């Protein structure tokens, strides 16, 4: 970390000076790790039309965190991850088995989990206020240990992506084509939604439930406007996500606003610009 602090000290910002504002420096490093991760998995969330699904996973993760905090498990995070995983499998299975529109299934699960989360956190007259942090998110609270964890998650995701992308991408084009190529569509979907669930759960307290889905969807949606193949799609989504992350964090320092929301405003601006630039064909 000291190396990182030294690197930053060459920057002309007042917070970047040695010995100052450690939390800001940590947050910047965290953003540099987390935003590319969101940009990367966002590509296939948008490609597989899972934007609503990932939103549901966010709500499931929120309930998981409430359960984790309440139960005083050996670590709230592990309880939260366990619940989110169970939630993601449940939604995926029901979506596959029930002959129901997936948006209905997802809507049902989203309502159920957020209601359960609020119910549990206000049980016995408890105030909901202590959960506000998870709604808005606070990246400035991130610790060095958590940054290391995020870096590990990023590394694991990149490795998984080497194996996961092709089958995921084929199923997005056509389920029957994917199946005829030997892809187990249900298995791939379960693995992917589990990955999204884990990432969403661990980053919930830094990013916030209200905006976490925008972190996943906006960079990829913007990249789709201007790219024509899957490589430029990935690269552009990751770069947009990273750029909005850094710009949003720095701006939030000077405007005193919540970082997550500020980052999303940058992402939204990028989406607007790319939308206007979009020229199809080719």
């Amino acid at each position, binding site marked *: 970390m000291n190396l990182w602090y030294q690197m930053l000290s060459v920057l002309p910002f007042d917070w970047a000076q040695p010995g100052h504002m450690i939390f800001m420096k940590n947050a910047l490093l965290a953003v540099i790790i987390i935003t590319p991760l969101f940009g990367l998995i966002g*590509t296939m969330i948008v*490609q597989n*039309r899972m934007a609503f699904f990932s939103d549901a996973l966010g709500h499931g993760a929120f309930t998981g965190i409430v359960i984790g905090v309440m139960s005083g498990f050996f670590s709230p995070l592990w309880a939260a991850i366990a619940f989110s995983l169970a939630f993601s499998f449940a939604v995926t299975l029901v979506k596959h088995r029930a002959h129901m529109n997936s948006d209905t299934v997802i809507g049902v699960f989203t309502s159920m989990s957020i209601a359960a989360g609020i119910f549990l956190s206000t049980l016995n007259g408890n105030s909901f206020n202590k959960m506000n942090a998870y709604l808005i998110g606070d990246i400035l609270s991130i610790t060095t240990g958590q940054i290391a964890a995020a870096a590990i998650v990023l590394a694991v995701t990149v490795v998984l*992506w*080497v*194996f996961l*992308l*092709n*089958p995921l*991408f*084929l199923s*997005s*084009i*056509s389920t*029957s*084509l994917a*199946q*005829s*190529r030997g892809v187990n569509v249900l298995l791939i979907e379960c693995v992917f939604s589990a990955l999204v669930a884990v990432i969403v759960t661990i980053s919930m307290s830094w990013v916030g439930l209200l905006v976490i889905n925008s972190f996943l969807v906006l960079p990829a949606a913007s*990249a*789709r*406007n201007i*790219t*024509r*193949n*899957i*490589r*430029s*799609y*990935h690269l552009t989504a990751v770069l947009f996500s990273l750029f909005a992350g850094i710009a949003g964090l720095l701006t939030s320092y000077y405007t005193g606003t919540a970082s997550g929301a500020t980052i999303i405003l940058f992402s939204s601006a990028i989406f607007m610009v790319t939308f206007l630039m979009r020229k*199809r*064909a*080719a």
Partner: protein
Amino acid sequence: MSQRSDSFGPEKPCGESCRNKCCTLIKDMNVRIGETQILEHVNIHLHCGELTAVIGPNGAGKSTLVKALLGQTDYTGKVTFFKSDGSPARTPSIGYVAQNPQFDVGTPVSVLDLFIAATTGWPAWLHIPHRLRETAETQLKKVNAEHLIDRRLGALSGGERQRVLFALALCPMPDILLLDEPVSGMDKNGIELFYELVTTIKKEFDLSVLLISHDLPYVEKYADTVILLNRTVLKSGTPSEVYADEGFRGTFYGGGAAQ
């Protein structure tokens, strides 16, 4: 030789007519979903280098037959592929061209991406090595579509898209090419082009082609054998034989009254 029988499956079904050719035998295929018998005692014999068309009314079990062949639904019976050189019989590999799939028109995916993802283990999001690109190009050349390699899937016309999926189905070269209503939504010109291409490929690679269609005029023009399916095989033979059959006229022209 033609009496050869092994533990894998039934003996090769034909005598002189296809001793030196490869063929596939679908023997006594039955599919039952819940209480409903969808396919019953279906026997089909596919010859290499020939196009066999399966026709039948809606609900005849055509799509179930496709699913069974693709292994996506359970069935009883045997599907066996016999090679011309007398090597052991096996389950045929299948190249599948689905009904015109609806791509998201905005999808940022090129034809090359699709090829890489479907036919190689190389992660399509990383830089694609030159040799893999060349392989994809060679495959596309088979269907005269090498110029489409960098086009976006969403920007292809219906005909172009089916040609790309056709090339994909030929990689690796399957034992049976399964075309499931491949020309739906294409214009007349595109349909002719597509079937001409299928005819060329079928001869060039001595390929068994199984076409599911309800486009009777095109079936008559391009099929070598026609199978009239309605839960079971009602009639099979050359197009003119099947089209002259009572059952055929009953199925498609209401009671055989019209000619």
